[in-house]
């Protein structure tokens, strides 16, 4: 069978006269053939699938609208042709994760002189994967121990921790045939062994070398997955010189220091701060729990996907149980014994649910330990003296939140060190101790987690923020704004710019992204600050993302779930409170404000819903300028739901964050309120046309 090309589809399209359904059917078949052809690049196939979606939408081809429908098909085809032309054959590789084996020998030949992180052919993959996790744990432990050593260089237990980390990594990696890692860990272990034996003092270059060794090992471990995929990565440039320095720490003072090399040109850091004599270490880590040896706790390692599946199944059990309890036979009071047994089972199931949710909870420690290191590095580089203290690091949150918290926390800490804490001389002038304090406090309040970052620096400067916001065109005047509103501006899109956040880290996202990510986790940020005294950044998050408090609403015959946290209030509007602008945009006046109305059944294409605004319920959602009223038919009640993705087979659908199993076993869709609000702003004219 001859292979079809896009040209064939175009030929079929040209044959499509209005009203000619046979020609359209022919076009559709050709499009499907092309869509199913995985030798075409996926953007092309996506565009063609778009075209089919238009063809399949009966609304597009009704009578007079047919020309519009064909035009839309034409546009989709044009996109496909564009992709085909610009990509040509170069991008038309199948999207299957094909391991580009043929690239490997080529690369190896080209860089014969550089060393590669190679994996032996007969390596046991699962063992190596275990090793990655284990090595990470040990390196984190080593880093924490090194930070302890900075304040107490004689802490023998801490030195042992670091030594044990290097030793274990060396042993396991050499057993697995990862010779590059084993070799390097060996040098690091040697140096620490000399420290342990008292031959070498933990002073001078030794702390810095140890930190760099931990960093390099982290890099190497992080590169293992790439090597497993068949592309052995090069060893970092630092590998050789650092190995040498570790074996000869006495002469290492002359070796170039990678970190100071990349520091900014302008303000030179105070030389004394870069020099690590332990008596004025810039950062003192005073964590509450000193010894955290990973081997001490009786723990079992469980694969996370198994854990998730267990939690999921328990969720199912709860739903099945609810259906059982609500069954007519059980509720019938005549069968007393059955009711008693069901109640007993119910109790067990509830307890099981609490337990299983607890399994997903992990201490925040993981996200916090890294911060001590960040503060240390930043302070060293900017010549500041900072004490970093942590409280409540054992507060438990959902495992997924720990990862998601890492970025916001990093930003906040960076902000506090860069902009909050002053240089020692400035601080002394202001009558404060030269040593600044940054304090991180985590705690649990009800079903929320609070993470506070408190610094005793100069505080946010209202005037500077206002000036910058005006310069960036975010506001025109700040006359009527409260301090809180002004501080909130630093989260506005376009406020925090590259020069502000990346100077130190070289990368990073803006504060607006941080806030958006937090909102996506149903979190909040609050800033309070006093000029000259310092600032407090607070992040507030739900304990778990697994369970959402949802309001179940009816739109037409469909039910949707709206996260309760996003609903400000609900009301039934008076007909006189509904207005239109230019005969199109609908608004409602309520409690002294005027809000745009979004008819959910239009946004979600549900038929058979209430048309009259005054016959349904309006639900106020969103914050500040984004406040919007959603029109729904009915509120059906509140329920705790377990949010699930719609599955990879469907992917991400606009306006939805996922689905959840409702009490009757059916799937209810969870609305993405923010996205629906934004989408309604974008297409307000289009909905207006439909309304007319």
């Amino acid at each position, binding site marked *: 069978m001859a292979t079809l090309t896009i040209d064939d589809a175009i030929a079929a399209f040209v044959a499509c006269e209005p009203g000619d359904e046979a020609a359209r059917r022919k076009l559709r078949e050709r499009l499907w053939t092309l869509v199913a*052809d995985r030798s075409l690049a996926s953007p092309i196939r996506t565009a063609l699938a778009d075209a089919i979606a238009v063809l399949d939408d009966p609304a597009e081809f009704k009578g007079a609208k047919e020309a519009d429908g064909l035009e839309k098909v034409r546009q989709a085809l044009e996109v496909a042709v564009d992709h085909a032309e610009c990509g040509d054959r170069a991008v038309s590789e199948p999207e299957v994760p094909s391991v580009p084996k043929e690239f490997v020998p080529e690369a190896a030949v080209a860089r014969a002189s550089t060393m590669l992180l190679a994996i032996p052919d007969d390596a046991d993959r699962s063992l190596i994967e275990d090793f990655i996790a284990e090595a990470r744990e040990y390196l984190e432990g080593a880093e924490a121990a090194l930070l302890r050593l900075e304040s107490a260089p004689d802490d023998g237990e801490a030195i042992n921790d670091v030594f044990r980390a290097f030793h274990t990594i060396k042993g396991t990696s050499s057993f697995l045939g990862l010779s590059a890692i084993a070799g390097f860990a060996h040098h690091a272990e040697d140096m620490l062994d000399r420290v342990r034996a008292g031959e070498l003092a933990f002073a001078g270059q030794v702390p810095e070398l140890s930190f760099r060794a931990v960093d390099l090992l982290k890099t190497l471990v992080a590169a293992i997955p790439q090597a497993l995929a068949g592309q052995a990565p090069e060893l970092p440039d630092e590998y050789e010189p650092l190995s040498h320095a570790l074996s000869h720490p006495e002469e290492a003072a002359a070796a170039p220091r990678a970190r100071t090399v990349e520091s900014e040109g302008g303000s030179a850091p105070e030389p004394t701060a870069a020099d690590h004599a332990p008596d004025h270490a810039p950062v003192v880590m005073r964590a509450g729990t000193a010894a955290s040896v990973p081997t001490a706790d009786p723990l079992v390692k469980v694969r996370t996907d198994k854990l998730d599946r267990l939690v999921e199944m328990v969720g199912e059990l709860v739903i099945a149980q609810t259906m059982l309890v609500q069954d007519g036979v059980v509720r019938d009071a005549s069968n007393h014994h059955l009711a008693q047994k069901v109640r007993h089972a119910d109790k067990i199931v509830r307890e099981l649910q609490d337990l299983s949710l607890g399994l997903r909870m992990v201490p925040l420690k993981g996200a916090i330990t890294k911060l001590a290191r960040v503060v240390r590095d930043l302070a060293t580089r900017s010549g500041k003296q900072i004490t970093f203290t942590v409280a409540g690091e054992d507060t438990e949150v959902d495992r997924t939140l720990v990862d998601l918290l890492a970025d916001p926390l990093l930003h906040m800490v960076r902000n506090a060190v860069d902009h909050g804490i002053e240089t020692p001389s400035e601080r002394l002038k202001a009558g404060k101790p030269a040593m600044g304090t940054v304090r991180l406090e985590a705690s649990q309040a009800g079903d929320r987690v609070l993470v506070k970052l408190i610094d005793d620096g100069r505080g946010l400067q209202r005037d500077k923020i206002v000036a910058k916001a005006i310069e960036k065109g975010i506001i025109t005047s700040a006359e009527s704004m409260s301090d809180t509103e002004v501080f909130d501006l630093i989260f506005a899109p376009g406020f925090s710019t590259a020069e502000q956040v990346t100077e130190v880290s070289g990368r990073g996202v803006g504060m607006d992204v941080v806030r958006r990510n937090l909102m996506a986790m149903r979190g909040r940020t609050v800033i309070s600050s006093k000029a000259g005294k310092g600032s407090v950044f607070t992040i507030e998050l739900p304990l778990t993302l697994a369970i959402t408090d949802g309001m179940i609403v009816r739109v037409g015959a469909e039910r949707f779930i709206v996260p309760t946290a996003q609903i400000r209030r609900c009301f039934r509007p008076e007909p006189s409170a509904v207005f239109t602008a230019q005969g199109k945009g609908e608004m409602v006046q309520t409690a002294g404000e005027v809000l745009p109305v979004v008819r959910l059944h239009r946004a979600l*294409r549900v038929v058979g819903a209430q048309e009259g605004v005054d016959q349904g319920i309006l639900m106020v959602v969103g914050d500040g300028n984004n406040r919007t009223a959603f029109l729904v038919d009915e509120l059906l009640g509140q329920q705790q739901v377990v949010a699930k993705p719609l599955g990879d087979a469907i992917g991400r659908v606009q306006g939805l964050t996922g*689905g959840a199993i409702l009490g009757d076993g*059916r799937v209810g869709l969870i609305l993405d309120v923010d996205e629906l609000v934004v989408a309604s702003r974008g297409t307000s004219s289009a909905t207006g046309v439909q309304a007319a």
Partner: protein
Amino acid sequence: MTAPLVESPATTRTLGGKYLTFVLANEEYAFEILTVHEIIGIMAVTPVPHSHPVIRGVVNLRGKVIPIVDLRRRFNMTPPPEGETPETCIIVLNVRNLLVGIAVDAVSEVRMINEAEIEPPPSFGSDVDTSCLLGVANSEGKVRMLLDADKVLALDVIATL
């Protein structure tokens, strides 16, 4: 994470083997038994707004949310005149490690189809899309269309809509 790294493309294998045969609009089709995950009764489908028209919606498969593809819409057929019957059911397929349900009029049987009974897909002209056919099985006087699940669904591009 658990996905296999290399999936062998189905180009050189033989077509003979066990197939699950089913009925759609009085025509007989079949999927390779290895792609079939399970068969479940028809259940209430929740439509998903803004998804591709061939996706009828999502259902709850023991706690997993899986999409249901409407094979009639995929093949541009009209909906069944009699609506859903007790025989209507959902075949859950495992395609490239994704679970997808397909609503069909009735499931017939699991059948051994020999290589010799299979002919390459005939050409019906451009009106009928034969690209998703593995072949046509002709045995005991009945013709069954052997479907290539991957090509029928083309999930990777439908999903992004």
